């Protein structure tokens, strides 16, 4: 109701057609070339992940016994049949990379969703309730922050046993503190605003105050954090895979592809290079987009 009135008021005052919040966001976002490049690459990766079965030229697990450690197509001895070459058991690297994208994006979605959900719940509770509940939650978060995230993830995976699901779970637990802290800080700022007080006076229940009044106004930093969370999730997943604690062979995961290739570093540079490039570019794309989102969503920087 109140927002409707405000837009009406703005329309009458400002002569040119005012932008909707979404248009305004896009206007700022698209002026950041890096962020747009990141977005384009992410859309591309998501496309590959969704349609991996149709896009990939080969199956990621079929072993061509007559084409072991074949170099990329443009080198001597390479074949256009295997564009980026093959690994030590004759699997097509390009196809494995494409199927690996599916895994990385899936792990990113699962772990970001999980930690976002739990982080919002804990952060809102801590910020809204204050007192002993707040202190307890924040102490636990402090303890988690004292652990290097990779070490904690390794410890969790060591207990649960190495698998993709457990690695994703470990990554989401490890990234939880950031979401809790952000949500709590934003909630505490919003709590002192007049609109919250007035809703409370009208008689809104605590749950309504928390999730309908306060939460939507805390979303901007959380969206940025979630985007950056994708990049950490993909990096940590690859690191766990590399240490043999993530995806188990023969799953085509970028990090474990690197670990498998370790012994062929001297003979076949391509088995090592391409998975790493994929990890780097994908993580870079998410970081670029996160930076762009932060600039576009932060009203202080807009001017």
């Amino acid at each position: 109701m109140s927002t409707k009135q405000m837009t009406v008021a703005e329309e009458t005052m400002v002569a040119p057609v005012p932008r909707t919040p979404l248009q305004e966001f896009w206007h700022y976002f698209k002026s950041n070339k890096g962020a747009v490049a990141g977005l384009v690459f992410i859309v591309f990766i998501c496309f590959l992940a969704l349609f991996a079965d149709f896009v990939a030229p080969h199956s990621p697990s079929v072993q061509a016994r007559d084409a072991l450690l074949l170099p990329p197509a443009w080198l001597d001895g390479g074949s256009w049949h295997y564009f980026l070459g093959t690994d030590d058991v004759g699997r097509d690297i390009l196809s494995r990379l494409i199927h690996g994208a599916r895994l990385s994006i899936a792990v990113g979605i699962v772990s970001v969703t999980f930690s976002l959900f739990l982080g919002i719940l804990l952060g809102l509770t801590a910020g809204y309730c204050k007192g002993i509940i707040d202190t307890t939650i924040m102490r636990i978060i402090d303890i988690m922050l004292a652990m290097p995230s990779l070490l904690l993830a390794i410890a969790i995976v060591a207990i649960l046993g190495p698998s993709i699901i457990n690695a994703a779970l470990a990554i989401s637990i490890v990234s939880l503190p950031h979401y809790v802290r952000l949500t709590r800080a934003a909630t505490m700022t919003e709590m002192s605003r007049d609109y919250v007080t007035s809703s409370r006076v009208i008689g809104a229940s605590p749950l309504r105050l928390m999730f309908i009044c306060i939460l939507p106004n805390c979303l901007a930093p959380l969206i940025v954090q979630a985007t950056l969370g994708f990049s950490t999730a993909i990096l940590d997943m690859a690191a766990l895979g590399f240490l043999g604690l993530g995806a188990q062979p023969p799953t085509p995961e970028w990090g474990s592809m690197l670990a498998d290739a370790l012994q062929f570093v001297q003979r076949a540079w391509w088995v090592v290079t391409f998975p790493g490039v994929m990890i780097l570019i994908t993580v870079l794309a998410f970081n670029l987009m996160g930076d762009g989102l932060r600039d576009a969503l932060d009203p202080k920087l807009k001017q």
Partner: protein
Amino acid sequence: MFQFILRRLSLVIPTFFGITLLTFTLIHMIPGDPIEVMAGERGVSAERHAMLSAELGFDQPLYIQYFRYVGGVLQGDLGNSLVTRTPVLDEFLALFPATVELSICAALFAIFIGLPAGIIAAVKRGTIFDHSVMTVSLTGYSMPIFWWALLLMLIFSVNLGWTPVSGRIDVVYWIDNTTGFMLIDTWLSDEEGAFTSAVSHLILPSIVLGTIPMAVIARMTRSSMLEVLSEDYIRTARSKGIAPWRVIVIHALRNALIPVITVIGLQVGILLSGAILTETVFAWPGIGKWLIESIGRRDYPVVQGGILIVATIIIVVNLLVDIMYGVINPRIRHSH
């Protein structure tokens, strides 16, 4: 000041006990019986099992086991390794200097490259140099360092043959372990060429481990410098006709460095995390490699003790950074 330190300390102690509780819980959540893990594949008889259980205190209620564990920790007893049977603390102390040496070199690399790059990028804002610094640092920030390690190894060790592939020193040298720091030990020893060998083994791991901190420091220095350079007092200094370099180095840098120092202190966690990956790739005999190998061998007392020590180091460093921040900035010291 004293009160400020006391207040910080009072926050740290519960965190420490929280971490002991966390490591204790983690280890007890592991499925399977610790005695059977110790016995290995041969297994133990029921009587022997009961005896060992009583001897190691596994028959006690969990809270008593926890208090015993904390009591041991406070006396420096972190248990014995299941594999080597030596105390965890001794193993840790033997390997720790290698990690410290690597981390210090990595931090120096990060500071010596990141700090000047950030300052120049801020001063020359919007130029090609600025854009390149920002691009390089964002790339460094996104780097999977285990892959970066492999790539550098492939180029500089395998193809060009400039640096050795792995380890701390060539096997031909026998160095007395005086301090545990290879650079100092080789410097003190009479062996010809040992010091050079130690240095060349350190170069690639330090660059790899220092990459992410370098990127973070460069970005932080740049944004902090930009903020300070737009302050009024900088304009005043400039309008007084002070030499441009003097305005930057004497007037701006001092204030810009405060947040940067905090960020540098917070890199310790990143360094210790990164050490796990870097040490694994370069076969560097430090605590990162030790922890990963212990997890592979299911040597749980080592995992438990190692995690506890690493977490404690990080809390202590964060505490020191906090206190130093209070020393530099009185406003923080007096706020509640």
